[in-house]
């Protein structure tokens, strides 16, 4: 067996984006004497939080209330959000964004110097705090830079976690981390582990997500028997650039932009798509469906990357676009050759965010003792069946911090850790990756399998779904599992071997995709982002529950978990 090095900390955070960095800071402040490992497969400032554009939601204005933010979120979730979670979230949200302001985030301001807020989809009033159109970039860098001042945060940059380490008593006490630069395996041992690795949008071919979003944390937990919850709910962002899938923020519509079809009609105003007077500021699931329907009715435009509709910002004028949406202007010019000051931007719905994830309670604790999760990786049930734009960055902060405080307390209750079983598992991981690296044998090409996976997910789990195509998708994905085991890998080097990392990521993607497809197939209704043509209506009688998908060697096993209701009664979701 391979020799491995052992590293000990009190708590371990896997993932260095918004949730992971906020958790690390909260843990460092909760107990300055504890040692916190922050493990990420990239340098934290590369994390995909960086690409969020529009803003982060929290009640700020005198005409707004926590009750309104709560109700908007519950309704946005199509009544599948847990209401005690939502109530806690809206209450903590202003505090968390205020802290970010104190830490230096360059929020855009009103004339009197207070923080400015803008309109966002599904929100009844302006409660989205913004920094022009680069909130994610500024949030990530503010958190990362602030984290540098805590000496008890020990970073493991460019380390890929390939397995959770499980003690003899069944609890999670560490991670096996592959040092990408040296190829060495490290056993990082601690009393608790938090997963903050983001979502897995890359299982789809057309996504706003960066290359790194391969669902790693979800797969790590899933393989240890932790259920993935509500995985069928995939958010299609209405406005992505054709071809690349690059995100064009909802703030374009928050600032007054129009969606138009080939006849120049504002179809959200002209036809009934359920968004009512909200028009372009309806929630994302409804607007994505409306765009697909316009295109299917032949009212889209066609381009080299398929059919699209227009996002028209011209009436906002150059000054406002440059002040509020400068990044959108740059993205339009650079990636589709369109200056939105002069011409409408071509856009189409694009996979953006996973509402589902690792099942946690309100403390971010999973069913596996010692394992926590927060942010997009997790499903704390804030977002239910459809997330409202600008709630997710705030979610990273609120639950990253709460989870970290809770795990700090939990870690104090844990005594001496028996390393033996943990080290054995890490050694086995080292051997596994050694055998994988440059192994030559195997007949399958990595990029080909990834493409097949992407095709299966797009055909089966798109904006509109059908029982037969979902079934086919699940079969295709399950079949790919075997082919991933037979990959041909050609790079034998131990140093920065991105081929072996891609192979590990692909295996994670297949796990996440299989759970997603199985969950989608099991929900025979239409709710939020899950729209099933065979069952076009919401069915509270039979489906007002969370889908729980658990790994088994013979395929995903589907179970249920109650939704926590509260004073907002489920009602027809109409705007």
């Amino acid at each position, binding site marked *: 067996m391979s020799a491995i090095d052992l590293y000990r900390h009190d708590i371990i955070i896997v993932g260095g984006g918004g949730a992971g960095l906020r958790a690390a800071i909260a843990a460092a402040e909760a107990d300055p004497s504890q040692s916190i490992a922050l493990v990420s497969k990239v340098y934290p400032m590369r994390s995909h939080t960086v690409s969020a554009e529009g803003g982060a939601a929290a009640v700020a204005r005198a005409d707004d209330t926590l009750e309104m933010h709560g109700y908007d979120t519950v309704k946005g979730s199509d009544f599948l959000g847990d209401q005690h979670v939502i109530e806690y979230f809206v209450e903590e949200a202003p505090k968390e964004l205020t802290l970010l302001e104190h830490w*230096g985030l360059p929020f855009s301001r009103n004339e009197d110097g207070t923080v400015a807020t803008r309109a966002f989809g599904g929100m009844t009033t302006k409660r989205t705090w913004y920094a022009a159109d680069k909130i994610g970039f500024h949030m990530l860098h503010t958190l990362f830079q602030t984290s540098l001042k805590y000496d008890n945060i020990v970073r493991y940059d460019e380390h890929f976690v390939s397995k959770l380490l499980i003690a003899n008593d069944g609890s999670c006490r560490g991670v096996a981390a592959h040092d990408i630069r040296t190829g060495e395996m490290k056993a990082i041992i601690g009393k608790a582990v938090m997963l903050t690795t983001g979502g897995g949008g890359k299982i789809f071919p057309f996504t706003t997500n960066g290359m790194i979003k391969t669902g790693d944390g979800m797969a790590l937990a899933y393989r240890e028997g932790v259920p993935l919850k509500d995985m069928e709910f995939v958010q299609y962002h209405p406005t992505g650039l054709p071809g690349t899938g*690059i995100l064009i923020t909802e703030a374009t519509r928050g600032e007054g932009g129009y969606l138009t079809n080939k006849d120049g009609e504002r179809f959200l105003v002209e036809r009934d798509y359920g968004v009512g007077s909200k028009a372009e500021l309806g929630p994302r699931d409804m607007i994505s469906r409306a765009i697909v329907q316009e295109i299917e009715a032949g009212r889209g435009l066609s381009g080299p990357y398929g059919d699209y509709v227009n996002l028209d910002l011209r009436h906002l004028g150059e000054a406002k676009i440059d002040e509020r949406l400068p*990044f959108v202007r740059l993205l339009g010019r*650079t990636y589709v050759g369109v200056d939105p000051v002069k011409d409408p931007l071509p856009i189409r719905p694009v996979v953006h965010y996973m509402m589902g994830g690792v099942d946690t309670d309100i403390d971010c604790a999973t069913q596996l003792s010692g394992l926590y999760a927060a942010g997009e990786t997790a499903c704390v049930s804030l977002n239910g069946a459809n997330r409202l734009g600008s709630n997710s960055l705030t979610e990273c902060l609120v639950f990253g911090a709460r989870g970290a405080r809770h795990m700090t307390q939990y870690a104090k209750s844990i005594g001496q850790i028996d390393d033996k079983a943990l080290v054995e598992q890490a050694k086995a991981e080292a051997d596994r990756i050694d055998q994988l690296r440059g192994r030559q044998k195997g007949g399958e090409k990595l990029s080909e399998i990834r493409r097949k996976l992407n095709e299966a997910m797009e055909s089966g789990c798109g904006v509109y779904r059908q029982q037969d195509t979902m079934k086919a998708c699940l079969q295709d994905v399950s079949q790919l599992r075997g082919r991933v085991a037979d990959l041909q890998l050609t790079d034998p*080097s131990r140093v920065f*071997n991105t081929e072996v990392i891609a192979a590990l990521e692909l295996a994670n993607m297949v796990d996440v995709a299989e759970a997603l497809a199985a969950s989608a197939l099991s929900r025979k209704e239409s709710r939020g982002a899950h729209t099933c043509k065979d069952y076009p209506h919401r069915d509270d009688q039979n489906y007002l529950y969370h889908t729980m998908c658990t790994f088994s060697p013979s395929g995903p096993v589907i179970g249920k978990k109650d939704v926590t209701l509260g004073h907002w009664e489920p009602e027809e979701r109409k705007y």
Partner: protein
Amino acid sequence: MREVTKTFVLTRFDPDQDEAPRTQEYKVPVREDWKVLDAINFIKDEIDPSVSHRWSCRMAVCGSCGMMVNGEPKLTCKTALSDYGDRVEIEPLANFPIVRDLVVELEGFMDKFKSVKPWIVRAKQKAAEEGTYRQSTEELSAFKQFSMCINCMLCYSACPVVANEPEFIGPAAIALGHRYNMDSRDEGASERNQRFREEGTVFSCSYANECSEVCPKDVDPAAAVNQAKFNAVIDWAKGLVMPKGGS
């Protein structure tokens, strides 16, 4: 969409195998709207999976994919291939040790960056319950530009001082330290100015302005260095008059 074949010359280096970096050529069918990164990804996926490079967001904001393209530091996801002829040379960023192929060592930068205390320094932290600070548009614009740095390292590759003096703290670290000095919420300027007066920092800059010319985010680090230089001197002079370091 129109396609042309271009030849890409990539730097290859595996410290386990190679004594020195070498080059390898690949012919790639390039679509007319491709960026440089698209071609490198095509090579990785379809021709030679052993090529190592960093990338993620492909929308010019994560800062991972900086490389030398025909001798100039570029963010490869933002650089159109249509601007180049049929032979394109891709090398790792200059002025950094090479880890492997197109991947460079960033640890030196991370240390330099931390040394300027790139965070809000306050004698007393304000509590969340006290609410946000007020900041005027003028106060925001005093530092906003310098906060746009994505740590892509192009400026270090372009900087003639970094080339000669690898210990030079460099444009991005100075810009980000200066960014906090200029933030109305910060009280840490005297600590950072002390750092800036040390050897190998702002006074090592030779005004080449290369950093600002290659910056893909218009941060203008050269302007930050100049302002930081001035402020570090003023701060020092104040220290002479008022021994406690000024107000």
